[in-house]
């Protein structure tokens, strides 16, 4: 008997009711992550990947008139039914934790890192009292390989380098051993050597604690280095998902193919042009009824007026494209 999936999202929709109209930021996303699995959520800016992760935590910006719909099951429990207080106390930072995107701005400049790293322990009731909190903070900072943590608890964020701050922010996320980690572009603000270290760190965390990871990125290489499966997002929907090797060897959806070919490769002939995808993603205010990639797709057909369902291509590999139906 297989274990229940860690995360099961069914038809998640997040619509923002703004003055200019309704923005369908997340428009019917379904995901599934097994225990201890890393999923890469890939797509260009504005496709809805960040909104998806915010929706998991129900952290929708106030005053944006956000309305959420759909089912989110964490370890079998329906978390959309929880109250806000329960989300604060039980889910956020405890069972689902977010690793901040920009380490330079994600740490509070007027509080010591000891205070900030021990905060999740304090607010989820995992430790009380100054020395206990400090011990816990030092311990988790050691897990992320920050040098001499006890001595540095009193220091402030500006006294650390970018790579160190990323580790601190990662420590804050794994403090309460969450079941699911949301890493939103954890490497974008860093240079390549540090990137590799952070990815290695995430891998070791995954192995040590068995936590699942959703890695949000636009960088396909980063996704490939950590994740077992990839989900490609476009205009608020998932257009293709599957095992990472499958996707890279046999990309089914034209958008995925275009993304892969847009990455410049070493060894490619010099003087060749970079392949860019022509056109712009559709506005999420009034998305087209049919396939949303159709206007930019080289293989557009008449059938694309109708939005294609998720069609299976291989084991665990599916894409929402009429092309696959043809075989």
């Amino acid at each position, binding site marked *: 008997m297989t274990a229940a999936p860690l995360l099961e999202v069914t038809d998640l929709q997040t619509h923002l009711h703004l003055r200019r109209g309704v923005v369908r930021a997340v428009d019917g996303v379904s995901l599934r992550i097994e225990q201890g699995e890393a999923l890469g959520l890939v797509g260009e800016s504005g496709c809805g990947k960040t909104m998806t992760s915010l929706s998991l935590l129900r952290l929708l910006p106030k005053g944006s008139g956000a309305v959420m719909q759909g089912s989110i099951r964490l370890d079998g429990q329906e978390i959309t039914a929880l109250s806000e207080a329960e989300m604060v106390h039980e889910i956020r*930072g405890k069972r689902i934790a977010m690793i901040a995107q920009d380490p330079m701005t994600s740490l509070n400049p007027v509080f010591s890192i000891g205070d900030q790293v021990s905060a999740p322990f304090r607010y989820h009731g995992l430790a009380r009292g100054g020395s206990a909190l400090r011990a816990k903070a030092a311990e988790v900072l050691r897990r992320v390989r920050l040098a001499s943590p006890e001595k540095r608890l009193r220091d402030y964020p500006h006294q650390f380098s970018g790579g160190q701050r990323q580790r601190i922010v990662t420590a804050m996320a794994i403090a309460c051993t969450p079941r699911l980690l949301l890493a939103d572009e954890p490497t974008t603000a860093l240079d390549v050597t540090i990137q590799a270290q952070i990815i290695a760190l995430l891998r070791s965390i995954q192995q040590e604690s068995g936590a699942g990871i959703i890695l949000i990125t636009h960088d396909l290489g980063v996704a490939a280095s950590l994740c077992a499966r990839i989900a490609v997002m476009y205009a608020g929907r998932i257009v293709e998902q599957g095992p990472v090797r499958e996707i890279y060897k046999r990309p089914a959806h034209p958008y995925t193919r275009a993304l892969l070919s847009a990455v410049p490769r070493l060894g490619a002939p010099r003087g060749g042009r970079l392949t860019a995808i022509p056109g712009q993603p559709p506005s999420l205010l009034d998305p087209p009824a049919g396939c949303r990639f159709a206007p930019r797709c080289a293989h557009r057909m008449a059938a694309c007026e109708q939005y294609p369902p998720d069609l299976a291509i291989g084991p665990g590999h599916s894409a929402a494209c009429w092309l696959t139906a043809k075989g």
Partner: protein
Amino acid sequence: MIGFLWRRLGHGLVSIIGASLVIFIISRLSGDPISLLLPPDAPPKIIAAARIQLGLDLPLWHQYLIFLTNAAHGDFGQSYRWQMPALDLVLQRVPATVELACAGLLFSVALAVPLGVLSAVHRDGLIDLGGRLLAMLGQAMPNFWVGLLLILLFSIYLDWLPAFGRGGIQHLIMPAVALGWYPVAAQTRIVRSAMLDVLESDHIRLSRALGTPEWLIVWKYAFRNAAVPLLTMLGVYFASMLSGAFIVEVIFAWPGIGRTVVEAVFSRDFPVVQAGVLLSSILFVLATLLVDISYSLIDPRIRHER
């Protein structure tokens, strides 16, 4: 950090000396300082002695040096109304003024902080609009008028609070409110806009994402960031408290420097005026210095820069 302190002290000293120069220049504007510094009925022998002592036949810069050295020794002349050294008279009154200025500042901050924070958190809500209205009114009402109205209401009609003098807390309330009323508007604006900025920041969003309770986010994590711009302005507000205290003291017969100097102007007791003005300048410079130091204590980034 120490270097920074010395530099600030240096600046302060320059300001104080500059203030003394301004006071000196003004005192010589009337043409005949003797008529200012001595009572009108002074016998000619005293006048002649004063002429020599002040060096009135010497060039102006020399006179200033005499003035400065005297001042450094605490000699500002005699108050002829009170028959005691002018400086002593004024020094006696300093605690009262400081008490009033601090109380006024405390009142304005105690009002501005919750107003500002709540206005930012419930943006465009009732508190926000109400607070803005209150603040606007505050900026349009002179502090002495507020004081008079308070006396009218609480002393004359309701007989709850005493209208004059210094004593217990019931004597302090009305003057502090009258004094602190004016800067509430500006302070609330500062707090509100600082909070609005911080609440949008990445680190607050991360705090929220990691399950920090909302009230802690607002009052602990956001507020400490927002407090920084307010603190930098506190020196300015303390100065306006000192300035406003002059008038409020007159209304409430508060025994501070302000009232003393005002009375001295009308009783032609110029030594007291000189001493009082210089002393209030020193007070202000000290206050600004203190605020600058505490600012670097609050914001760790500054602390480490120095």
